[in-house]
């Protein structure tokens, strides 16, 4: 892949279709928006082709200012057009502006480590037989801060998502969900502050009589009903999550102060199902530890998010997390390749496809990089882009993006300074130190 200069954001760099070529035309495209310094509060990201000057953005700030309905963002576009690099510059340049924010990155390709190291963040490399363990039920400081019922609901959500992913289902039936609910309640009541998956497995293997009572059933009936759950949890503990999520959390993170965290999942890249499970477990863990805490803004970034979005159980889980987390300042960025690819991955029934798309269409901040022609038609209809905008997407060069921030739009020439490539370079993804 050749190196290209990213210096400069002079006007001539955007090659638009002929009918879009001039600023005058852009005025027509975006009446009244010329000169608007959209989102000037936040990190500098590049040149604002419509408004002139720089383009600045911060997700929490945009939410606080009422520009968007929820602090959630998706960055999508064809491969190697700069999605990850843009997200990295956003994170890097925001650190001084948001000194108290906690940022977590779920990094399936292992390309964020340098940035993490440059910012002094913890970099957790999750792999089988590694030395890092994350307990998806761990609630860290949230245990003291949030109501017991809420925390239980959170744990049940994580457990249900893991079981659903493991068993290839979108959703758990109410009966199974209820067993998980009562089991986790029982474990917590038995004085295990942060139960683990093996604890859950043991309980399901030999359910106490009281569990049957709690579930208004008989021990015999329960023995039948818990069977699929037991199998799923046992499989998680013995295979997919073995050595990763099967004990108490081994990372000693100061949740009140730690600036950020990179969760490097690249060792699992060849095992897609495991990767998805670990991703969901890690997302659950992060959300759990921050549950209800209002002291700090939180930002969770999922790179290569299509790996999660192609699984509807995770998508639904993320959607729930977004909805809940909004109340306590949790913001989210999903980075994914073009949306129509996603569509083909989730065509197992229209209801299913709608969930993944729903997550994206309800996302308040949508950043589109170059899209291939065949992907554009779908976008048109689903994402409320005008046909001119859809056409525009086809002609975007690398590092050019159409930003839709609530009702406002901007075309941004993103810039990565030469020295920032040390941190953003994905051509040399780094593992180990």
């Amino acid at each position, binding site marked *: 892949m050749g190196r290209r200069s990213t210096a400069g954001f002079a006007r001539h760099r955007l090659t638009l279709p002929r009918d879009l070529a001039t600023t005058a035309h852009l005025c027509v495209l975006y*009446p009244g928006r010329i*000169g608007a*310094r959209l*989102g*000037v509060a936040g990190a*500098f990201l590049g040149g604002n082709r419509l408004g*002139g000057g720089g383009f600045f953005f911060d997700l929490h*700030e945009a939410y606080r200012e009422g520009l968007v309905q929820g602090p959630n963002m998706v960055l999508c576009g064809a491969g190697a057009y700069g999605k990850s690099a843009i997200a990295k510059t956003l994170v890097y340049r925001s*650190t001084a502006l948001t000194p108290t924010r906690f940022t977590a990155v779920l990094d399936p390709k292992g390309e964020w480590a340098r940035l993490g190291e440059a910012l002094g963040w913890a970099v957790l490399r999750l792999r089988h037989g590694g030395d890092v363990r994350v307990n998806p039920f761990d609630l860290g400081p949230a245990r003291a801060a949030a109501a017991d019922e809420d925390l239980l609901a959170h744990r049940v959500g994580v457990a249900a998502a893991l079981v659903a992913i493991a068993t290839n289902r979108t959703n758990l039936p109410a009966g199974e969900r209820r067993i998980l609910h009562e089991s986790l309640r029982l474990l917590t009541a038995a004085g295990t502050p942060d139960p683990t998956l093996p604890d859950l497995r043991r309980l399901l293997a030999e359910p106490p009589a009281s569990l049957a009572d709690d579930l208004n059933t008989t021990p015999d009936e329960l023995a039948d009903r818990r069977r699929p759950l037991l199998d799923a949890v046992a499989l998680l503990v013995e295979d997919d999550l073995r050595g990763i999520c099967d004990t108490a959390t081994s990372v000693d993170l100061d949740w009140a102060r730690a600036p950020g965290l990179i969760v490097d999942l690249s060792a699992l890249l060849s095992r897609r199902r495991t990767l998805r499970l670990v991703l969901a477990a890690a997302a659950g863990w992060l959300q759990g530890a921050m549950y209800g805490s209002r002291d700090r803004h939180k930002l969770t970034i999922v790179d290569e998010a299509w790996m999660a979005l192609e699984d509807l159980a995770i998508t639904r889980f993320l959607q729930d997390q977004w909805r809940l987390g909004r109340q306590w300042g949790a913001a989210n960025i999903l980075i994914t390749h073009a949306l129509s690819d996603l569509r083909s991955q989730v065509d197992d029934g229209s209801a299913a496809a709608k969930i993944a798309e729903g997550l994206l269409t309800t996302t308040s901040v949508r950043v589109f990089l170059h899209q291939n022609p065949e992907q554009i038609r779908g976008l048109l209809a689903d994402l409320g882009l005008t046909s001119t905008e859809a056409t525009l997407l086809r002609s975007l060069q690398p590092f050019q993006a159409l930003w839709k921030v609530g009702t406002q739009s901007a075309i941004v020439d993103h810039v990565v300074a030469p020295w920032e490539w040390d941190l953003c370079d994905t051509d040399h993804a780094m593992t180990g130190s």
Partner: protein
Amino acid sequence: MSSTPKPSPPVFIHVDGAYWELHHARSAASPIVVAELYPTGTRTEPVEATYRVAAPRWRLEESLGFVIPESMYQAVLAAPAQTIDAAPAAANDFPSADRDRWRPTRTSPVLMPGAGFATYGRILHDNAPLRTWEDGSHRIEIVSLTAGPAAAQAVSYRLWLDSDLTAADNVPVSQELDAEDDELVRQVAAHAITGRAPSTLTARQQSAVAAHGKDLLRSIALPASPYPQGTRVALVGKDGRPTDITVTVTDTITDANGATWYAVHPEISRIPGHPLREHPDAFLILSADDLVPTLQAPSSGIEPILSYGSRVRTIDHHTVTTGTVVRTFARADVPWYEIQADDLAESTVRLSAQDIEPISGSFWPSIDDLVATRTEAGIHLQEGEVLVSLSGFATVDAGPQGPVLGPERELPPRDPVLGQVWSHSHRVEPSSAGTEVEIEPL
């Protein structure tokens, strides 16, 4: 419905909560730079500038209280000039609370169309002055020396008094001076403190000069011989010019023939690993002929690859300003450093050599000394590290039982006390308290 967009300003500096726009204005005499400060926000209606100054370059810097680096100034000049209504007032003061509040920081993003995106710190780094003299909160920068007509030359300088950019100017100086000459620093200081008509100075400048001017002139004055204790002197090289080896005078000795000798302590001994670091009383005895008073920065032992204990400043890192090198790694030919921030609450960061500026180096007589000191501090070997001492370097490789130190490769010989080979022979005397200082000869 839509208006023509305002032309993008040639320079745009984003500070916390506002941004500066720098424009170029037409004027009969020297070029005028217009600086306008706008509040930031997400509103879409046009905003009024909160503050506006129009002045020639140096007056503008004095007014704003921050540096407009050369490349930024050139970007302004290259842009089409606007016509401004009235000539700017001779002296203009940006209120001092605002000077602090709206001053760009190292991390401030700067936009210069055509030149792309940079940070203010990066631009300062790329436009470093020819020379800097510093003493506590006072500082002089020799920005440039330019040949003028009729064999004259002019110096551009900046002066900070009490950490505030008090004066900046361009003045003629004698032809034979170059940036290394201390006399240039003295002439510049004299110009800033006593050479300008009070009418050209604002009230703020006048009071800064009144409060600190004498202090500054005293600290750069040429000392009379014999040099008093504490005088900073440079060792003279074979060519009779001062080298960059600096020492401080601790005592004067007159020998039987009436010749003057000085007991001196090397300034490089302040850096980690130096054998005299814990022996402030140790001294060298040198002939007065080998020494001249100096205003240059203390010898700092900075080498191309920094090692454990070196001090660095980041160019534009967001959370770490200064720190100490803990480890050095070689990645694709560029050294990377693990740096412990001075603000110990910050975790260590790993930055490439191109993202830092060295402040001072380290002085490990041997790799063994370095390893021993690190081990004592709980800093164990990591794969990929490079360890550098005065005499050689070694890399840390993967071994079956963990990281192992590779074979040492030699570096060119160094002076075991001065760090640089000096043409005259010298040796260290034990300190007056009689402590033996053992230094391996090279």
